[in-house]
């Protein structure tokens, strides 16, 4: 269970990324977070595994106060939270399976991690994860020879190998074409349903968000302006999330679609 209690995030330059966020997410939910570029979607997601610090309020994951963690505890905490990025973030110069195997690295004894020695058991687990996302056949191919959609699936397999309870996905399909994006979203959905992993996803495509997520969180200028089932999102809700930048058919008019804040 992820619980935000009056969480705020102020950047060193004074910009307020998050304001008074209250949010509770139960295990196994599929939550899409939507909003304009710069509204605080990335910040929200990245506070959960403390890639970003919160500056006020309390954020707990399974009753653990995230801000109280540091060093080794924080790294152990991050083991149960997987993260997927817009740019896949793979080591492109090595094979697919080695990318997946890096998920085991933090738990390995130092001599094995230094020399990159993996047990048969770990290799089999990695292959199973690749099979779950349907790219088993590419296991021993170099990652840079894969298409964008395949690379994102490798990233997904890497996250699965970590055996997480929560997956945070920061714009996972923004760099993919519509067809591939759907396939990757299908993977997310399946993982969510079969393995009961909580999924939080930042997404620009409102149609995909509404189609796949069970719950939608709308965020505007660091504040949550909508939180409810996907089925109840209508034109007015979208208009309030996107500052009225919605046309008659409900399409969002967001010019800088791909310049997400970092």
């Amino acid at each position, binding site marked *: 269970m992820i619980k935000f209690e009056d969480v705020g995030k102020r950047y060193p330059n004074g910009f307020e990324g998050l304001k008074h966020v209250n949010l509770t997410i139960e295990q196994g939910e599929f939550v899409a977070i939507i909003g304009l570029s710069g509204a605080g979607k990335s910040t929200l997601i990245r506070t959960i*595994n403390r*890639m970003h610090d919160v500056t006020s309020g309390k954020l707990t994951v399974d009753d653990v106060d995230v801000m109280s963690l540091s060093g*080794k505890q*924080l*790294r*152990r*905490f*991050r*083991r149960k*939270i*997987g*993260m997927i*990025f817009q*740019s*896949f*973030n*793979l*080591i*492109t*110069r*090595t094979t697919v399976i*080695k990318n997946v195997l*890096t*998920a085991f*690295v*933090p738990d390995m004894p130092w001599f094995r*991690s*230094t020399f*990159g020695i993996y047990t048969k058991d770990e290799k089999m687990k990695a292959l199973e994860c690749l099979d779950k996302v349907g790219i088993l056949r590419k296991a021993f191919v*170099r990652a*840079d*020879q894969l298409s964008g959609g395949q690379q994102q699936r490798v*990233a997904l397999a*890497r*996250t699965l190998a*970590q055996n997480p309870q929560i997956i*945070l996905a920061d714009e996972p399909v923004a760099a993919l074409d519509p067809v591939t994006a759907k396939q990757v979203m299908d993977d997310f959905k399946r993982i969510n349903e079969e393995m009961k992993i909580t999924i939080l996803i930042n997404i620009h495509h409102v149609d995909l968000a509404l189609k796949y997520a069970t719950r939608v969180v709308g965020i505007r200028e660091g504040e949550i302006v909508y939180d409810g089932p996907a089925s109840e999102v209508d034109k007015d809700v979208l208009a309030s999330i996107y500052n009225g930048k919605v046309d008659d058919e409900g399409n969002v008019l967001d010019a800088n679609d791909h310049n997400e804040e970092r």
Partner: protein
Amino acid sequence: MNKRIIEAYEKRPRTWVYHLAIAVIFVGLMVWSGSAVETAGTTMDGGEIALNVLKGIFQPDLSFLFDFSTKGVPYLMLETICIAFLGTIVGAILSIPLAFISASNLTPKPIAFAGRIIIMAVRTIPAFVYGLMFIRVTGPGAFAGLLTMGVCSVGMISKMYIEAIEDLDTHVVESLDASGCDTWQKIRYGILPQLLPNFASTAIYRFDINLRDATILGMVGAGGFGAPLIFAMNAYRWNEAGAILAGLIILILIIEFISTKIRVKLTRG
């Protein structure tokens, strides 16, 4: 005519002054540098020598070329390869710390600048100066040659290392961070896999160049084919010189072919 068009025409960039200035500077530089062309004159007919050289190169001394004892061309080439190989490794290792302190995305600006000045200074000193200095260290022979080669390689290798370091993709590190890796693991799995193929490729490229540049070593007495080549040429034994050059050209073409293949494989997989 349309006033706007006339205005646009009036505003056209006047490049002729610029071009004229460049032309004047260029011609001036040429005249200046032409002033230095001087020669002490030859005792023999230059044309005849040139002809002899060509003849020698196309009629190499075959018994020398295929002499497999330690005095023949094959052994000289082997010695040169060995010098270039170890020299490249020495250079590749020396360059690592230099490159890391000079990479502007890792170190503060003043330190990086100082590192670059050092690299440049190392690069400026001509090879034979190093050669003569190292001979004082190890005595004449291939050992001095490989040290010279190592130091001479530092300039280019570290420059290319720096580029590789500055081009690092830090997204990978971000994802390793998110999955709970510590600092050493982030370096081991995020940074090294990116750098190693690059570094290896650079070293192979430099090995190629070192092989070509090995002539100078022999001249100062630091091993390789240089010394016999110079002796042969100074004594006008063109067939012998031709045999060495033929061996060298074959060797360089083979190595270039192989090294290009490996480097393509390293970057494309």
